[in-house]
């Protein structure tokens, strides 16, 4: 996905919408990057960057003092100056809140034993942003006394925007991801849209093959031939990483005929 078309206009603002101002008018927060991360243990990877036109919540007030939350993330410029900051629950925390079934204490946090997974973060598209950085609080391993204060710990840092250079792309080993809006059945012609994204911000191309046909490039698949069909699709990123094939099966039903008058 080409992010250039989501460049915000010149009057973008990092501030929260002013009271009385319609969010629709606050265009700076209508251009988002959805960042998808995978983690295994405490190893985090940025696996997808999707440019999406949607509202992004405004930044917290950016101060020298880091937030007290257990987890936060920032957009930083090339000088590591914070441009955008949000807090949320720590997605790496294996403890999850569950309903206990006990009416006296209906909620509790339990260790799920989960050590890996995926999570997403939403950030605005800021021209100066070069990095997304994930933080949590940390204490030195031997810290048992209060004279060793906790400090922010950088969990991971990933390049964004202009920081994704050719060298970054060349090192990339993570394949892109393609999604579809395929349904199980269509009455009449099936029109299936594909949407591809990559951790470098854009893919080289997206390929699909319908039934036993030839491979084709594109993001829209149309077929009106009644019957059962199989669609294979995948994308290739600029580093040449090939996504494993995605397969969807669907049926095109013959449209109802109009009766003669």
């Amino acid at each position: 996905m080409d992010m250039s078309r989501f460049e915000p206009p010149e009057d973008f603002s990092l501030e929260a919408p002013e009271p009385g101002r319609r969010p629709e008018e606050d265009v700076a927060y209508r251009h988002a990057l959805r960042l998808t991360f995978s983690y295994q243990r405490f190893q985090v990877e940025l696996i997808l960057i999707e440019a999406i036109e949607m509202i992004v919540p405004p930044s917290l007030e950016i101060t020298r003092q880091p937030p007290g939350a257990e987890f936060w993330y920032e957009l930083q410029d090339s000088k590591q100056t914070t441009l955008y900051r949000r807090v949320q629950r720590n997605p790496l925390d294996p403890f999850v809140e569950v309903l206990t079934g006990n009416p006296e204490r209906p909620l509790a946090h339990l260790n799920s034993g989960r050590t890996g997974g995926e999570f997403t973060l939403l950030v605005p598209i800021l021209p100066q942003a070069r990095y997304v950085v994930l933080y949590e609080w940390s204490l030195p391993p031997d810290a048992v006394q209060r004279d060793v204060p906790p400090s922010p710990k950088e969990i991971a840092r990933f390049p964004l925007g202009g920081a994704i250079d050719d060298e970054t792309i060349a090192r990339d080993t993570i394949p892109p991801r393609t999604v579809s809006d395929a349904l199980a059945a269509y009455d009449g012609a099936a029109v299936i849209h594909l949407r591809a994204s990559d951790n470098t911000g854009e893919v080289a191309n997206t390929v699909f093959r319908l039934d036993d046909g030839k491979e084709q490039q594109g993001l829209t698949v149309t077929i009106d031939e009644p019957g059962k069909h199989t669609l294979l699709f995948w994308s290739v990123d600029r580093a040449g990483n090939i996504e494993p094939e995605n397969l969807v099966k669907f049926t095109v039903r013959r449209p109802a005929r109009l009766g003669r008058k």
Partner: protein
Amino acid sequence: MGANDGAVLAFRQLINNGANNLRYNIVLVSDGYTAAEIPLFRSQCQGFLRKLFWTAPFSSLRCTFNVFALEVRSTASGIDDPLTCGDGSTGSGAMPATFFDSTMCGGGSVRRVISLDSGLVRNRVAGFLPQANSILVLVNSALGGGTQSDVAVFTTEPGWEDTALHEFGHVLGLADEYGCYVCDGSDSGRTYDWFDSIIQGYGLPDQPNVSPGGSRAGLKWGAMVASTTPIPTTAGSVPAGTVGMFESAKYYDLGLFRPEESCAMRNTGAPFCAVCRAEITRALVPWTPTTTCVTPTATPASLTVDAGIRSKVMILPGRGGYEVTLDTTTNLPAAPTWTYRLNGGSWTALPATRTIQVPINQSPGTNIYNHSAEVRAQVGVGDLDYWVPGTSTFTTAQDTDLIALRQPNNAANAIDPNYGDAGNVEGTGSASINFGGLVAGNGWLYVRSRKYYTRLAVRLQLDPGFFGPDDKPAWGLQNITWTPTPSQSSGLTAFYDVTFDASGLCWLDSNPATVVDPNVGFPISAAGKDAIGQSFSATGRLVPTNVEYRRSISTIERAKIPKWEWPMLFDIREKVLEVVFNGVLVMLNENVLRIGELEVELKDARKG
């Protein structure tokens, strides 16, 4: 198991408040629902919407959200429930094939933790709606469990909607307000310590709904605390809903404070406190239009019933009434359950035809004509888009209509003598008739003998309010008495023998005391009880000259000569005769007899 175990059937928009890039988009996703169970999923989505939009402050933020449903069919119903789990619990061992492969004991440690292929969930949602803000997977199982992470997952155990709102509060920046973390008794009664809180991974109480306490002025929500409210605030010391400073919050029983005694961030199912409501509203400002957002208003259910009286009905032998159709109009959705009751009795299912039987004489001897019919329609909360908790106003509608059954009117009864009863023609050997000198009697016509008699009918015409044979032949009258006593009666008809003479008089049953002018006739009355015991009475008059003789006396249409008198034997003294009798010309010419327009050929009886 996984994506091969089902299919994506549909992506539907449930709530549309504008462009997806401007609204907070919630997507509800099904797992563990077979195709036949997708309607159940839809109903549960409606349940979630009701909970969301009737919980403050979301109730005032309806236009903030777009809501979608991704309907995914699974091959099998339910959720994986491993036999064993790290917490020592035992499961059923069920392993249904579901699309997103939801399983209890996700991660292997705790049974109530659900895991699933969240990447597949995100991918399938992203294919339809890249702008999804919150994804909530609903797993078709009554087993208790759920997990809030990047994709929220809940089973449909009771109260899951409340938990979903609690978790949504976290997404919008709120802290838990309960005083323990694992809450198994091992971490109760702890005192807040910032160092400990960091070590435990709770972070600092930065959220707007928890505070380490202090003075009223230093409290985050101090501006919302009334000057009369004590600080700290003891539970139970102030009315519910009072903003104060209550101890126990964010996993510590002591040393951390919350704004109100009760809040959804402390107890799922409770309302959000004022501070949390304000914070949620503030957090959703970027998605909330300020232009034309109309706060939804619940429309109370309405019902009107219109009782239409139809036909008479015999409910039991001797117990009658009317069929009444209860036409209804309601704004309740779906297919309500309909019940009705009469006169405050017990509620009964309303037939699909909307037609009921309303009795007149449910109790013997007591006739009731005025009734009230109440009709009630009820739907389940699941049928409503929105609902105000704690009231049935929006699920139940009721209306009453008065039913005035037709009361019989004796004044409208009648006795009709003009009745062409085929049985009227009667006669005996003593009957005779005078034809101006010609006499007929016992089949013979005699001159100078001046009388004959016949049997005439009267018929009782009952007002339509009565039940009788005119309604249905089987509905015989319970009894009837005619005055004077007829020579014969049947049902609504009575027969009287009437004798006429040539002098212009007539009488009943050979009783000279009843002699009257045939043009005046005889008074006749009837009284009794109809088929359901309603008393009736009627009076009338048998006026012989009103009776159509040509029909009632004879099948010979043109002459007033009774059929029973044929064949006649005429004793003729002259071959030619011409007389006028009662204005009718009677002529004899040889063997041809003409009486008015009737021409009869005579035969000589002596020739056989």
